[in-house]
């Protein structure tokens, strides 16, 4: 049993690391490439998860969902719904400083959380949505290992597309906007449009991450989408891994997820009366870790690759 238990736990950890890596890649597109400060990752994560859950879960009388559609439909719906919300928020904030985007995104994340909690007809409120089907169950049975492979395959696909985006002319424009907005504007680029595109695509990827999360756990409730788990961990992952570097984003997601899970094992050894306090201690440790990284190694584990070709950078 011991060995089997460890293997099950291993599959659990790798799957969730994969989900977080997908979301970190989405944030990398926004922050790493374009310099957009999205602090509402949890909101897009939740929209993706709930959209997918409502489209695919079995029929019921309590709330609006239960269309029992296939997983790809749920995933596509998750991507579309988060892209739509990002489009609205982006349209309002793209012309403003990124601080306003930060405030607007944290606002939208909070409101999404309020809606999830209070609109029972839509989301079943705090009771959450059970019975979200695991895809591939028709072919291989309810096998966590198969789902892990599916998540990793989707992660590989997102990674491939993100790398293509980075090296494409589109990605170069995004980085140009990040480095020097006026110069990019002088070169005739429509800054607001490029920013909006990056923001919408990045948020859509986060929505996909939410969908993968929902289908893995099979049950979601508003609790899972608080700013701590949804937003903060993804940010620490990106900063630790190296913003602007896709591989760094994936590595950061794995390392921070391993650390986060490791502290859970450690605090799990404490007596039960300290359980809530142990959670606070873990958050404190991760919060301090972020500060140490920002001060000591702001470029992260894998720094962003320097652009190829001749550069006339006087400092380097």
């Amino acid at each position, binding site marked *: 049993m011991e060995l089997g238990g460890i293997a099950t736990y291993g599959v659990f950890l790798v799957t969730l690391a994969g989900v977080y890596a997908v979301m970190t890649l989405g944030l990398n597109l926004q922050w790493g490439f374009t*310099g957009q*400060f999205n*602090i509402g990752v949890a909101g897009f994560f939740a929209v993706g998860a709930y959209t997918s859950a409502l489209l695919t879960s079995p029929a019921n009388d309590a709330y609006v969902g239960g269309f029992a559609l296939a997983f790809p439909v749920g995933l596509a719906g998750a991507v579309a719904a988060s892209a739509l919300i990002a489009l609205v928020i982006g349209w*309002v*904030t793209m*012309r*403003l*400083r*990124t*601080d*306003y985007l*930060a*405030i*607007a995104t*944290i*606002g*939208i994340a*909070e*409101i999404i959380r*309020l809606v999830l*909690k*209070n609109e029972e007809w839509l989301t079943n409120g705090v009771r959450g949505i059970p019975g979200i089907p695991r895809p591939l169950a028709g072919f291989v049975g309810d096998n966590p290992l198969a789902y892990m492979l599916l998540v990793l395959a989707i992660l590989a696909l997102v990674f491939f597309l993100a790398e293509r985006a980075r090296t494409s002319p589109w990605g170069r424009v995004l980085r140009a906007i990040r480095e020097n907005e006026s110069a990019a504007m002088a070169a005739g680029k429509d800054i607001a449009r490029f920013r909006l595109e990056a923001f919408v695509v990045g948020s859509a990827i986060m929505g996909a991450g939410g969908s993968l999360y929902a289908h893995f756990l099979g049950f979601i409730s508003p609790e899972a989408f608080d700013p*701590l788990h949804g937003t*903060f961990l993804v*940010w*620490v992952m990106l*900063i630790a891994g190296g913003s602007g570097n896709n591989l760094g984003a994936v590595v950061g997601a794995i390392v921070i997820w391993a650390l986060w899970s490791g502290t859970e094992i450690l605090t799990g050894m404490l007596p039960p009366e300290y359980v*809530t*306090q142990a959670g*606070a*201690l873990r*958050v*404190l440790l*991760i*919060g*301090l870790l*972020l*500060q140490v990284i*920002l*001060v000591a190694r*702001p470029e992260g584990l894998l720094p962003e690759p320097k652009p190829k070709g001749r550069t006339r950078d006087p400092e380097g």
Partner: protein
Amino acid sequence: MWTELLQLTIYGIVLGSVLTLGAIGVSMIFGILRFAHFAHGDLMTLGAYFGLFAVGLGLPVWAALGVAMAGTALVAVVIDQTLYRRLRRTQPVILLISSFGMALAIRSVVQLVWGPNNQVYKQGIQLPHRIGDIVVKPDHLWIVGGAVTLVVAMHLFLSRTRMGKAMRAMADNMDLALITGIPAERVIVWTWVIGGSLAAAAGVFLGLDTRLHPVMGWSVLLPVFAAAILGGIGKPYGAIAGGMAIGIAMEVSTMVVAPAYKPAVAFAIMVLMLIIRPQGLFGGRS
């Protein structure tokens, strides 16, 4: 109907007093350090719990308020000098990330020290004042009176003292201020002293009005930002008008929408403002 409106407006002024004190700090920090301070809500929480500590020692609430303000100002300065100062040479947005992490760290410390449950400054029911059908709790009078006193004190500081003038100069035009020989680091320290102590007062008042909880400050962070933006971010005087407008709008909105969506009302006003007039009512920065 009119009674209810008047009653909700009174609640709105009480909430607006809390939001104003928070928004002044956010606005000043943005004006001088150029970043949105996401740990401000949790500084409010910390201040409220410092107050609880002082009340536990047997001090009356007004004295506990002083303890909370001094303690939180000190914490804010220490955070700035040990952490934010090192990050100031990079882009301001790095400070924003750092402050987001600091928000969670402060909240965790509060939860570790004081526990995760609701707490109150004093037990028992207060006898409310009744004017016709309107109900006013004595605490409400203390909160509004305290906020007015602090705002007047801040006004005198900003308009009469050298440091206050230097602070406004730095917020208006950083380069010009530095050329005239204003000691930037000292101004920054004072910004945190004022921002931190006003945040603590906001936290104590919020705790007095409702109850103390580790996420109390975080839950009003969005309205505080909305107030700062409405008044024109970087403008401490605008924050007063913004705080009152947001506070009253949030309470009065409960006549129409579910009370759970009060933060959403603040957010909607903020988004509307960003679309129509991003520089705020009184022309801050866009």
